[in-house]
């Protein structure tokens, strides 16, 4: 299944779709933010291909997770890096895999603690379905339906590869 996916091909499709989405909505000079770690890798590639002027932002959502009381503090936390003021900006939020929607919920909460953006566009590489919250992506690289025990994982940053397994695990 994994060898069926050509990452570079996927990224170039996503670049095009994102550009189209921005143009259609009149988002001039958007600010791109990737969710650590996989989302930031994807965002980095999109950021290059879209030739965005401003540096890429990175979001660490560890402090906003809703599973803190059961899983505890993530051992490796590197702080969020947001290069610019967020107020009234059009944000392109990038993640690798969209599953339950909880990560995106946490990320949006954090974004709003930094300021009030004009809009947020969600771009994901894989939508594996199984949402628990009313969240959807504006740009999706590939949609697939996985069973509960199955897992999709992005490895990176260089080269970016997708892998699938059946290990029980939490949302990426």
């Amino acid at each position, binding site marked *: 299944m994994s060898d069926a996916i050509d990452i570079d091909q996927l990224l170039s499709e996503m670049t095009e779709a994102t550009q189209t989405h921005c143009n259609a909505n009149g988002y001039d000079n958007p600010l791109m933010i990737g969710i650590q770690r996989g989302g930031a890798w994807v965002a980095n590639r999109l950021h290059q291909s879209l030739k965005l002027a401003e540096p890429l932002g990175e979001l660490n959502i560890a402090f906003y997770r809703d599973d803190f009381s059961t899983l*505890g503090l993530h051992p490796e936390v590197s702080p969020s890096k947001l290069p610019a003021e967020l107020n009234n900006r059009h944000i392109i939020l990038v993640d690798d895999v969209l599953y339950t929607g909880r990560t995106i919920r946490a990320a949006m909460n954090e974004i709003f603690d930094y300021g009030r953006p004009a809009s947020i566009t969600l771009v994901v590489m894989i939508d594996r379905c199984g949402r628990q919250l009313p969240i959807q992506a504006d740009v999706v690289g590939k949609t697939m339906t996985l069973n509960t025990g199955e897992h999709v994982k992005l490895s990176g940053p260089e080269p970016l590869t997708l892998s699938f397994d059946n290990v029980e695990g939490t949302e990426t």
Partner: protein
Amino acid sequence: MTGNIIQLDNNGNLKHFLSTEGLSQSLLQSILDHAESFAGVGERAVKKIPLLRGKTIANLFFEPSTRTRTTFELAAKRLSADILNLNISTSATSKGETLSDTLHTLEAMHCDMFVVRHANSGAAHYIATQVAPHISVINAGDGRHAHPTQAMLDMFTIRRHKKSFENLRVAIVGDILHSRVARSEIHALNTLGVLETRIIAPHTLVPKGVEDLGVQVYNDMDTGLEGIDVIMMLRLQKERMRGALLPSEQEYFQRYGLTSERLAIAKPDAIVMHPGPINRGVEISSEVADGEQSVILQQVSHGIAIRMAVMAMTMGRSNDDMENTE
């Protein structure tokens, strides 16, 4: 030593933070790493993250201290916890209620964490042995024993300026005898692997056997400061002059006060630290306290990040462990 056993849970995570003694270098480094990520929170539009939402933290201050209590309170609020401030010295104990009674009353109010300051050494340790298994205890200063969050914010400040601890020579100057800060700093510095820790003080302010903690003792300030990268000044309580420990503030300042001339003996890029509040003209001159090499104000702001880190680490342990310990 058994010191680390009570502080850690079965998975080796920090459960209580009572002392810097007995904790591993990697654990101390991870406190500093976490503090680094929490430091940014204070610079944002909304200075609050929802990590400890719904948790209740009780500040149990058996000994008054506005400064320390305020930084713990701020740290708790930035983590979205609810905080109770209890000044116990004026309420419960004067009515004959025992410490255990007080603790059990607070447990019944479903507190999740106690931040404890007490005039007696070992108080936080004692409380940690008494509380229900789900409660974490953070020592905010006990007698002469330990003040681990102060020591860690000092380590944080040093790391920001000096990057690594490995080649550092650090001097702690002043009233070591009565200082819980000094004891916690000594343990933290040695665990983090500094080249040398010196203490500089007259014999009356040096506790017996302090060499066993891994320090070199200097009575003379000028020799003690040679080649030093970090100077950690201690506060000298005015009441020390009343007994037979020191003759006068003037004489103390002459022998141990940190002046520009003395500072020049240390390395040119040496930093000057002080836990506050400063007695200007007693332990340090205003010129040095406000000078370029002073990092005293940074220490204060780092205090919040360190306390956020320690609160988050002790409260954010995985659930299965807590089931094991219950």
